[in-house]
């Protein structure tokens, strides 16, 4: 084995790759070869560091210097100064907006201070395409322990005792699910990894697959041992090409090392894994629809019971776990149920990964102990709202979840508290909205999504969501009628009660929760024909402020509807009947003389 005096870790996650990290790696390799450092310095392409906002990110060890927003032309300086002369390049170290503090290493950065990385522990640390690096970080040790020292029931007992609950949204206790799979009778059983991460705004599963694919393979093998399955499938979105590629490399390497296949760790346990690609259907994230899809059918959910643990894929007993759930398993086996249970709240143990997005300074992936407050996540870790705007709401759970208003900022986040206020954990997307976001429009956005993705099998979802969307469309067009809010609530409650699968049962949540917390916005749209956030085009009224208008005539020239008139050098006027609310005049006016 070769020893290097320095390691340069370059983020190869999707975020940093699109910010140009691949070119950085090329340049680093070229530069260190030219300087003759290639025997002393190793360049490693890792998975995601989480702080996508500041990408591309480069960390140089042993110092742990954390460089952000690195450009190709900066590479020469890092190589010359840091790698050759041993001087950290201060100019490129990560700077946080708030106090203009310069952080030298990852541990100094506010974004990481309150985090506790369990599922993401290897992301950004190891090269995901090299199995030896995973093994060096205790990889496959948990599988070895299970196969050689524990019975399947003992493995299940550890997972049960840990209190781990499904991270895909539902929050079902993982150990109990495994017990069902274990107890089911059958000559053939299956383990499925659900990597059909379809919730808009969530990308933790993608990051785990890209940054630490072996942890998923190891956990699936452990699950296979626990329930008595010898075959596993990973159902992954085709929209994630890097994840698919790295996972396939990892599977091939595991086979080569004898960690997949026959006689694993010298026992008679055999297990293999195959990747199946999704084809762009959100409903396939629902477990029974996913199985239909693997079987080669339209992805339409099946009624439950029978549950998959008894009658799942190809009619055989099957357990299906989400990527992030699985990524926790090897650590629980290695460090014990008590360690895992020491993090989190009474009924939600461990950590949860959230994808911070929307109107927030530090966008990216964060992993925090359950029970952290929303305020800590948004202000301490996320760095607050950009441009000094006011926080309005955070949306969790994607199209199945709801909006959390400012009054609940101090809520300790876990499965049960989120459900109690009408939202849900979902897969962990957390989108922050500020005063410019219209909540009726946000509800319409999610309904539009569910209407499009409804598979059409059951009428409450197929017809009900469509009717709700029509009402929302009417409201945002300024044609809302008294009684519309009540109708939305009634429809929503009926769909929740009557739909076949999780997609339909949760589809009304975004509407119901925004009505609950932002009813005044709905009322303003319906009764005053006004959009308080100034977002809904049809409800805007454009006016010229006479004191600011100098009568230059620019607005009148760009107006496509000839709605603006006025004498030269005199304040102009907009005819509201002719105005089509396109906003062209506002864009052209140099004097801020037009308001809406």
């Amino acid at each position, binding site marked *: 084995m070769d020893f290097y005096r320095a390691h340069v870790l370059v983020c190869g996650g999707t975020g940093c790759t699109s910010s140009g990290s691949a070119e950085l790696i090329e340049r680093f390799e070229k530069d260190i070869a030219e300087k003759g450092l290639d025997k002393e310095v190793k360049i490693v392409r890792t998975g995601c560091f989480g702080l996508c906002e500041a990408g591309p990110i480069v960390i140089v060890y042993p110092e742990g210097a954390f460089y952000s927003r690195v450009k190709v032309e900066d590479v020469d300086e890092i190589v010359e100064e840091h790698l050759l002369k041993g001087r950290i390049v201060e100019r490129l170290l990560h700077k946080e907006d708030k106090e203009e503090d310069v952080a030298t290493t990852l541990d100094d950065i506010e974004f990481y201070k309150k985090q506790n990385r369990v599922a993401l522990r290897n992301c950004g640390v190891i090269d995901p395409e090299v199995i030896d690096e995973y093994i060096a970080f205790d990889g496959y040790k948990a599988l070895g322990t299970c196969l050689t020292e524990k019975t399947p029931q003992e493995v299940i007992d550890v997972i049960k005792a840990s209190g781990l609950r499904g991270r895909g949204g539902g929050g079902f206790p993982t150990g109990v699910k495994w017990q069902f799979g274990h107890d089911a009778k059958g000559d053939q059983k299956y383990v499925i990894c659900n990597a059909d991460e379809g919730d808009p705004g969530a990308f933790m599963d993608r990051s785990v697959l890209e940054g630490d694919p072996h942890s998923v393979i190891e956990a699936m093998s452990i699950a296979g041992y626990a329930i008595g399955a010898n075959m596993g499938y990973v159902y992954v979105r085709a*929209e994630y090409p890097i994840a698919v590629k790295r996972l396939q490399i990892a599977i091939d390497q595991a086979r080569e090392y004898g960690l997949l296949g026959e006689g694993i760790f010298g026992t008679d346990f055999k297990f293999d894994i195959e990747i199946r*690609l*999704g084809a762009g259907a959100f409903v396939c994230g629902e477990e029974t629809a996913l199985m239909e899809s*693997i079987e080669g059918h339209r992805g339409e959910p099946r009624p439950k019971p029978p549950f998959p643990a008894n009658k799942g894929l190809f009619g055989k007993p099957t357990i299906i776990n989400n990527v992030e759930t699985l990524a926790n398993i090897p650590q629980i086996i290695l460090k014990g149920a008590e360690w895992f249970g020491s993090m989190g709240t009474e009924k939600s143990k461990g950590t949860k990964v959230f994808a911070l997005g929307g109107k927030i300074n530090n966008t990216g992936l964060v992993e925090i102990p359950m029970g952290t407050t929303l305020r800590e996540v948004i202000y301490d870790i996320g760095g607050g709202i950009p441009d000094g705007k006011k926080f309005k709401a955070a949306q969790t759970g994607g199209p199945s979840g709801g909006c959390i208003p400012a009054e609940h900022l101090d809520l300790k986040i876990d499965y049960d508290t989120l459900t109690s206020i009408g939202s849900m954990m979902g897969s962990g997307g957390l989108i922050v909205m500020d005063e410019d976001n219209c909540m009726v429009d946000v509800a319409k956005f999610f309904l539009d999504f569910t209407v499009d993705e409804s598979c059409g099998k059951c009428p409450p979802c197929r017809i009900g969501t469509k009717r709700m969307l029509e009402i929302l469309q009417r409201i945002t067009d300024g044609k809302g009628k008294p009684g519309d809010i009540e109708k939305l609530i009634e429809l929503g409650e009926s769909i929740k009660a009557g739909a076949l699968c999780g997609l339909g049962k949760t589809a009304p949540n975004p509407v119901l929760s925004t009505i609950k917390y932002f009813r005044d916005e709905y009322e303003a749209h319906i009764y005053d024909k006004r959009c308080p956030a100034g977002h809904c085009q049809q409800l805007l009224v454009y006016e010229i402020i006479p004191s600011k208008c100098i009568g230059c005539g620019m607005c009148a020239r760009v107006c496509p509807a000839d709605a603006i008139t006025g004498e030269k050098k005199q304040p102009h006027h907009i005819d509201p009947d002719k105005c089509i609310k396109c906003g062209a005049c506002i864009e052209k006016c140099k004097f801020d003389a037009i308001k809406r």
Partner: protein
Amino acid sequence: MGNTAEVQAKYDELKGYIAETVKKPGPLMPIMQKAQEIFGSLPFDVQKFISEEMQIPMTDIYGVATFYSQFALEPKGKHVIGVCMGTACYVKKAEGILNALGDELQTAPGGTTPDSLFTLEATRCLGCCGLAPVIMIDDQVYGRLKPEDIPGIIGLYRNKQ
């Protein structure tokens, strides 16, 4: 679809893939994905070929082909541009990006340019929420976009021709 020998070679490749895959459990989706990779889309003739080779009714094939949004019955352009319409991108005004692309390419979402170079699509979340708003051209992601960036990016692909 090119000359006959070329087309025949494509059918032969698909036939070979079907032969090696059909024994596995649940082979239909991988086979249809492969067929789309080879032919670029799944026209009626290709679906019929799969139906005959696999001894599966045409209704099942057509049912699957029309259920999943990634299966295309019509050929797509050389470069497929997906504009992310996920939540994070939506609240950061992805609509403006989609409109800019529509103006630049003179086609509506779902449409293909007359020169068959680009297909424009509004897609589901691409999982790059940290870089919102984003688009994906083929397998390449472009993030933190403003409408004025669009002509430059499209130019890169036009110039490659």
